[in-house]
């Protein structure tokens, strides 16, 4: 009897790797920009996602299988992101998709996800209209500009005593969206808008723009820009000898941004959905394991990738199989305990319930000065 058990165990051991060719992992496809001017931020998302997968696989995976993350470079452009999704669906046969960073790229892959009936979760794309398109396969585990503006406009206007504000945004849907939402909410609170300017991704010299800014004499400057563009811009604001208060949205509460910007980062404010200095116990565990793996503290995008992957994988686990409809139904029932609060989804697929924070950079560290849960939009 004993020998029989041993024999069947041996047999199972030999047979398992043979039969397990295609179906021994659950594949989740990920489209992020890995080249181009937001490549660095895209890489952070991937790092966060890999950490989430590693943790889940260490805990035994989902549905008894390991999770396999298949990553493609969408370059933040609609065309490349669509190609990447086609490849992930056709060749890799992924069960769910995460991506695609830039809102314009995400907008382009949403119909593709719907066509193939694959649930798509974004942890980043924040343009408000995405969840208004009635795409039942799309879920946004991120804040929108409107929600951020609503949460922090009042605190900013009062704390910084803003009377005249200049708005600078990167020339894409996210930058324009951020500028519009914040200028609307701040204007309603009595802060006059004196200048609105946009610049292209990858711009390195802002002196011309800042010359106009100086002439407009604002006491506050709102900036919607990512790490690379934003760090150069903030640096040059100080190089022009401007001392207006700088605040904005983007991945500013990160070690890299602060390192690149240097002393010019001191005293600036950023409204972010995540900062490594948030003091929830779950966040401390997350920061510790992220830092152990990447030797850097997680920023907004590291957390976004981590959360998006956890939400997706947990939905697959709750669904009990990789059927798209079951995953979709499970996603609606999300109650994910993230490092930054608890994520739930509205029936339009917009996440709410998690915390967003306003941080001030002090002594090279992002210090949380206000925290508020993000409400469901109505």
């Amino acid at each position, binding site marked *: 009897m004993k020998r029989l058990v041993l024999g069947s165990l041996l047999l199972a051991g030999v047979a398992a790797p043979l039969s397990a060719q295609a179906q021994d992992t659950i594949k989740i496809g990920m489209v992020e920009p890995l080249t181009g001017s937001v490549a660095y931020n895209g890489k952070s998302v991937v790092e966060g996602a890999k950490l989430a997968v590693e943790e889940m696989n260490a805990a035994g995976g989902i549905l008894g299988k390991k999770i396999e993350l298949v990553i493609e470079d969408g370059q933040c452009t609609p065309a490349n992101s669509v190609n990447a999704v086609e490849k992930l669906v056709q060749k890799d046969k992924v069960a769910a998709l995460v991506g695609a960073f830039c809102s314009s790229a995400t907008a382009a892959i949403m119909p593709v996800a719907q066509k193939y009936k694959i649930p798509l979760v974004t942890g980043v794309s924040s343009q408000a209209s995405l969840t208004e398109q009635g795409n039942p396969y799309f879920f946004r585990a991120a804040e929108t500009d409107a929600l951020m503006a609503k949460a922090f406009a009042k605190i900013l206007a009062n704390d910084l005593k803003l009377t005249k504000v200049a708005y600078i945004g990167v020339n894409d849907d996210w930058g324009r969206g951020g500028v519009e939402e914040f200028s609307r909410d701040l204007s309603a609170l009595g802060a006059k808008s004196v200048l609105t*300017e946009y610049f292209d991704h990858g711009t390195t010299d802002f002196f011309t723009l800042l010359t*106009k800014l100086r002439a407009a004499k604002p006491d506050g400057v709102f900036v919607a820009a990512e790490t690379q563009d934003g*760090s150069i811009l903030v640096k040059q604001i100080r190089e022009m000898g401007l001392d207006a208060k700088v605040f904005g949205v983007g991945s500013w509460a990160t070690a890299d941004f602060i390192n690149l910007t240097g002393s010019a980062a001191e005293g600036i404010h950023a409204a972010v959905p995540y900062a490594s200095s948030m003091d929830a116990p779950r966040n401390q565990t997350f920061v510790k394991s992220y830092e152990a793996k990447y030797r850097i503290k997680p920023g907004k995008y590291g957390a976004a990738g981590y959360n998006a992957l956890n939400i997706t994988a947990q939905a697959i686990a709750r669904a009990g199989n990789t059927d798209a409809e079951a995953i979709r139904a499970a996603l609606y029932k999300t109650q994910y305990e993230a490092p930054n609060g608890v994520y739930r989804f509205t029936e339009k697929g917009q996440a709410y319930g998690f915390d967003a924070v306003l941080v001030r950079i002090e002594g090279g560290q992002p210090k949380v000065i206000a925290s508020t849960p993000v409400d469901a939009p109505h």
Partner: protein
Amino acid sequence: MDLDLFLQFLTNGVVMGVFYALSALGLTLIFGLMRVVNFAHGEFYMLGGVTGWFVTSYLGLDFFSGLALVAVAMAAFGWLVDRFLIERVRGQGEEPGILLTIGLSIFLVNATLLVVGPAPMKVAGAVAEGPLFFGPIAVTKLRLIAVGVGIALIAGAHLIIRKTRLGAAMRATFQDPMAASLAGIRTGNVYAATFALGCTLAALSGMLLGSIYSAQASVGGLISLKSFVVVILGGMGSFAGAIAGGLLLGIAEAFWGGYVATGMVDVVGFVLVILILLFRPQGLFSIRAERA
């Protein structure tokens, strides 16, 4: 007040113009002397920035020693690229060279992404950052130094080509390779030296501007594009043309951004290119004038 604005825009434009001229110089040099359209130009610029970050941040050298080390390293790299790659397609027309350099650019970007990743890198500057005022005009010391070094590099490259034996050999080889080699010029070495010089100029501008902005692995595409605009404006292969084209582009962008909108500033260069191609397709300065 309006005059103040105008002067600041003009200053910004001139500073950018010198930067554009400097970053396009290597491209026009290699094209003018070697007839190679170097699509890997932006990647040489990028490598200059990345190695600049490496020598200042990792090896801890000061900016100017770092600049010298980068110059030597990139000259050697350019020499090797020519001897091992460009040489194989020499004399076969322009297309094989274009395909080769496009391939090289893809290889260089991805190799850099693999080694250092996509994060922007900081090249330690020559002096501390901070504003410097001349009346109403704000610049920074770093920018002034970069403009100075840029002008020195442009003048230095010009002197090498005009006044040295090597320069004479370069021009002779370009005019008639057969006659040059009959006269005892080792044309293989001359080609390699020319390519190395172009490559070094691109890399030095990359490090110089990396200290003002930041160095990053995927910056090359945009630099190549702007450099082509500058070179087409000035005339392919013309030295004076690259300077004039750079200044024209810089100042035009500054005024367009200043008085119209900064969001569409990249349009300016291409509108200029279309106008130049329509009305003066040989560029502002034709190559013939330069060669004589």
